């Protein structure tokens, strides 16, 4: 027996559904008679499978319905960290969020990341975010001659900063932080995670340079342990714990 195209329910077929995406758009150019710089909500109906992600739905809109929709994505598999956005009022990666997990019966809201200047639709200016990251000097700092082989490290020493090596710089944590929203001066959780990765690395010698930067007015003491960052992180990094470990190093004077 062969399967026919008009068979009612194919075995193993993925159920499809219609989902509504409500997207907060920002038009810097003023197309279609809009004021330049106008912000508005637009709804799109998309035919999607239960296995589709929010990114697939955004692709369908951009490719089939409205080519002017702007969003970032690169690898589309949760590794590059390009497509962090605010989906149903929570920061997530569009490529790691399944539509069926979001209650597709109701419109799914998609907004750009909060706290960074919007450039167009879902694209924000990441420069303030990267500037904070550069500030904490995210590179190996050593003294003495360069060894001919790898710099060795015990598994215990490696485990100290294992969690913070997972960061993909998607900015989901920093833009979920209420202190970052109100105070543009704050380094933000991600920069502290980036610093933590080197501060607790036994091979690195610049820990006090970084701790001095994070002891600043805009540094770790701004953290109110709201835990938004830990909840938002698509890589499951315990961000608030990492920040607290930096605070502990500063209060005890020991790394």
């Amino acid at each position, binding site marked *: 027996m062969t399967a026919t195209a008009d068979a009612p329910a194919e075995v193993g077929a993925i159920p499809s559904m219609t989902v509504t995406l409500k997207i907060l758009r920002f038009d810097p150019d003023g197309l279609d008679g809009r004021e330049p710089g106008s912000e508005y909500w637009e709804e799109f109906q998309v035919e999607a499978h239960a296995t589709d992600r929010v990114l697939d739905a955004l692709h369908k809109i951009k490719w089939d319905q409205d080519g002017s929709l702007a969003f970032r994505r690169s690898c589309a598999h949760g590794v590059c960290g390009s497509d962090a956005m605010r989906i149903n009022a929570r920061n997530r990666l569009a490529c790691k969020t399944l539509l069926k997990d979001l209650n597709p019966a109701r419109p799914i809201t998609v907004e750009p990341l909060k706290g960074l200047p919007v450039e167009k639709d879902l694209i924000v200016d990441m420069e303030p975010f990267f500037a904070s990251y550069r500030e904490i000097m995210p*590179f190996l700092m050593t003294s003495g001659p360069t060894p001919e082989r790898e710099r060795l490290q015990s598994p215990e020493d490696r485990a100290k900063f294992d969690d913070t090596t997972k960061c993909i710089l998607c900015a989901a944590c920093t833009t979920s932080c209420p202190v970052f929203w109100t105070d543009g001066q704050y380094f933000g959780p991600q920069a502290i995670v980036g610093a933590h990765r080197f501060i607790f690395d036994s091979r690195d010698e610049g820990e006090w340079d970084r*701790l*001095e930067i994070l002891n600043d007015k805009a540094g770790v*003491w701004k953290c*109110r342990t709201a835990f938004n960052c830990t909840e938002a992180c698509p890589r499951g990094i315990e961000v608030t714990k990492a920040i607290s470990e930096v*605070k502990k190093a500063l209060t005890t004077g020991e790394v």
Partner: protein
Amino acid sequence: MMSTAPELKSPRRPVSHSTLGRAQRWSWIFQRVSGVILIVLIFTHLFVNLWSGDGINQIDFAFVAGKLANPFWQWFDFLMLTLAMIHGANGMRMIIEDYAHTPWLKATLHWALRISTVVIIVLGTLVLFTFDPCPADAPASLLPSLCEDI
């Protein structure tokens, strides 16, 4: 559009541990330490006033005056007053830092906070240490028992 690579600060700056004494850090430590002490002080205060003895029925002028005549409770209340005021003002200071962005508003709110904190601590301390538990020409039934000796 031409864009240049971001300039990185040169590493290996001379290390100074002097920043360990920065005000931000001390304000954070103070907030944690005073918070723990305040939990003990406030629950002792509530227990003694509202639970032990006759509970809430015991609170009248005589009860309060009796407590404030005792140096232990004077210093206990003084500690609770100052710690609570500084702890609260420190928290308010952080909220002002976060939400008041224009310089004049920030300065105004900071000074209003400082002045009100100092005024409340001074007034409270004045009451604690100059309180007269046995005012003259008051009916003896309302006064604490220690006034009978006078």
